[in-house]
């Protein structure tokens, strides 16, 4: 078969019949757009989390009584340091602070800035700032969402926290955290650890939980058992569990969506089947003529299949492109809230683009395979048209 002449004729036919194909391309591209957007968002969040988890401590230890977390005593820290193979034991103080009037909440995170490591990390995160000025007095760093919200409520420079004791604690807003970290830092308020204790109502001897690292991954299972045995009300969670729960969350969201999507897809497939049965039956005479002029059934099948593939690929590219722009350039307005929620603070994060084999192939398979399967029988039916149709 001559590829040149074949393509010339094929594209001529496609353009002649473009009104018949256009609606299919538009609908396909729309369906693909929706599907790709969801998968793009979930894989992007997953990618960011996985990158972040790399520096997250390996284990978290906290006190749980009756299924409810209670403040963890600081003495546990010393007990952990004594275990061989454990390194980098760090106490964490954090908790939610509710902005009662509007039912919004912020995540207060206390950091021990007197520690050298934290000092360095802070320097890296907010370069070109005077750290001394920050550490001098009650100051905090806030996430972008927090900043926007407080600005809107006329807390331009500082905020008065109400402590559990009923006293007010005025904290200056020092700086906004970089927007690239919005996925985790949007609702965060980072402040010195003692200040955080005061606002969250922890005593001097209490922390939220304690984290530590175990550099040798082969020891993880053993370590979990060892640490669990320290106290009867101690709960250990390792990084793998966190990773798995994130994985499950996004599988769950994406998966439920995909299953709902099957309904749309099967309707679409049925419509395609009917539509192409109709479109092709109007072409019977032309196909009969081609057969009378010496085209074999194989030639016609090839012709019709290429036609279908052109439509499939065109709508695939269009759908994926628009989804890409929508998610990674425009930040997926509306759809974002399915994944991140929209009740609390407005999150203006930018998704990190992720285009991997798995996502692109998944999109292609879930769309192209049913598409081609649906038109396969109509294509066959018209391809075996008896050439005598041309004589009628």
């Amino acid at each position, binding site marked *: *078969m*001559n590829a*040149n*002449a*074949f393509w*010339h*004729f094929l594209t*001529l036919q496609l353009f*002649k019949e473009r009104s018949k194909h256009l609606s299919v391309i538009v609908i396909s591209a729309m369906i693909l757009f929706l599907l790709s957007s969801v998968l793009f968002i979930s894989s992007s969040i997953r990618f960011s989390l996985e990158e972040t988890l790399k520096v997250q401590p390996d284990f978290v230890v906290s006190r749980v009584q009756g299924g409810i977390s209670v403040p963890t005593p600081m003495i546990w820290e010393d007990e952990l340091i004594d275990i061989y193979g454990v390194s980098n034991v760090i106490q964490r103080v954090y908790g939610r602070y509710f902005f009662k009037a509007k039912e919004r909440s912020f995540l207060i995170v206390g950091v021990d800035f007197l520690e050298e490591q934290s000092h360095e990390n802070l320097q890296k995160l907010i370069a070109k700032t005077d750290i001394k000025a920050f550490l001098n007095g009650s100051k905090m760093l806030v996430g972008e969402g927090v900043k926007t919200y407080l600005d809107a409520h006329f807390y331009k420079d500082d905020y008065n926290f109400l402590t559990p004791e009923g006293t007010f604690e005025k904290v200056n807003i020092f700086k906004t955290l970089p927007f690239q970290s919005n996925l985790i830092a949007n609702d965060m308020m980072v402040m010195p650890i003692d200040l955080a204790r005061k606002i969250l109502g922890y005593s001097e001897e209490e922390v939220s939980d304690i984290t530590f690292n175990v550099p040798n991954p082969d020891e993880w299972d053993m370590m979990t058992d060892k640490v669990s045995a320290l106290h009867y009300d101690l709960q250990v969670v390792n990084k793998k569990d966190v990773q798995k729960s994130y994985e499950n969350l996004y599988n769950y969201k994406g998966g439920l969506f995909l299953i709902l999507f099957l309904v749309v897809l099967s309707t679409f497939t049925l419509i395609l089947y009917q539509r192409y049965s109709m479109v092709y039956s109007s072409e019977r005479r*032309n196909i009969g*003529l*081609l*057969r*009378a*002029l*010496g*085209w*074999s*059934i*194989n*030639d016609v099948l090839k012709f019709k299949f290429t036609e279908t593939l052109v439509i499939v690929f065109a709508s695939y590219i269009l759908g994926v492109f628009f989804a890409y722009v929508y998610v990674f350039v425009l930040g997926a307005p509306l759809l974002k809230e399915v994944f991140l929620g929209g009740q609390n603070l407005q999150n203006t994060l930018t998704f990190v683009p992720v285009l991997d084999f798995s996502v692109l192939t998944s999109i292609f398979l879930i769309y192209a395979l049913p598409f081609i399967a649906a038109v396969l029988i109509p294509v066959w039916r018209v391809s075996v048209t*008896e*050439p*005598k149709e*041309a*004589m009628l």
Partner: protein
Amino acid sequence: MSNKTMIQIENLYRTFHHAGNAMPVLKDINLSIGQGECVVLKGVSGSGKTTLLSLIAGLDKPSSGKVLIEGEPISKLPDLFASELRAKKIGMIFQHFNLFEHLSVNENVTIPLIPSGLKMKEIHEKVDDALKVANIMHKKEVLASRLSGGEKQRTAIARALVASPNIILCDEPTANLDRDNSLLFIEILGELHRMGKTIVIATHDPLFDSLSFESTVIPMVDGMIG
């Protein structure tokens, strides 16, 4: 002229089944057409000449009997072979011209060569040759929908000739033409006859009764050769 048999028809029957009724259209046709012969199948409409023509071209399948094209049983070949036979050895000219209206003359004539696997250059050469023989070269780039009846007919001739087949089959070629164009068509047929093509024409047009070149008129009545 050689006596090589181009088309051999043996005990050919074709019966249409319609709503439970069997309607015999062709009954026991036996015919042998040699190379370079020109045969005019003559008969009123419904006499079965179009059906016979489509059986010869392998467009339709017989109910029994066979059609041999240069010794090959076109009616019983798998599609791949039948199509190849049709593409290489048979040129068809239809009553309604059957052009693709949105394609140009040039593109219409190219269609039979698309499955051939020839190089683009060869295709262009063959198309130009066919256009010249059919005397439609000057309208090469014009859309088929803009052609007059005669021009359409000549495009159809060029399309039938483009694969240089030995056999040309014409189904009521002058039914949609005026007298001048019909005469022009017959003139081109004479040209093809001189080129040594085997020609079979199904028609009821009296113009074909006395052709300027050697021809055999075979009358058809009620699906039988009279």
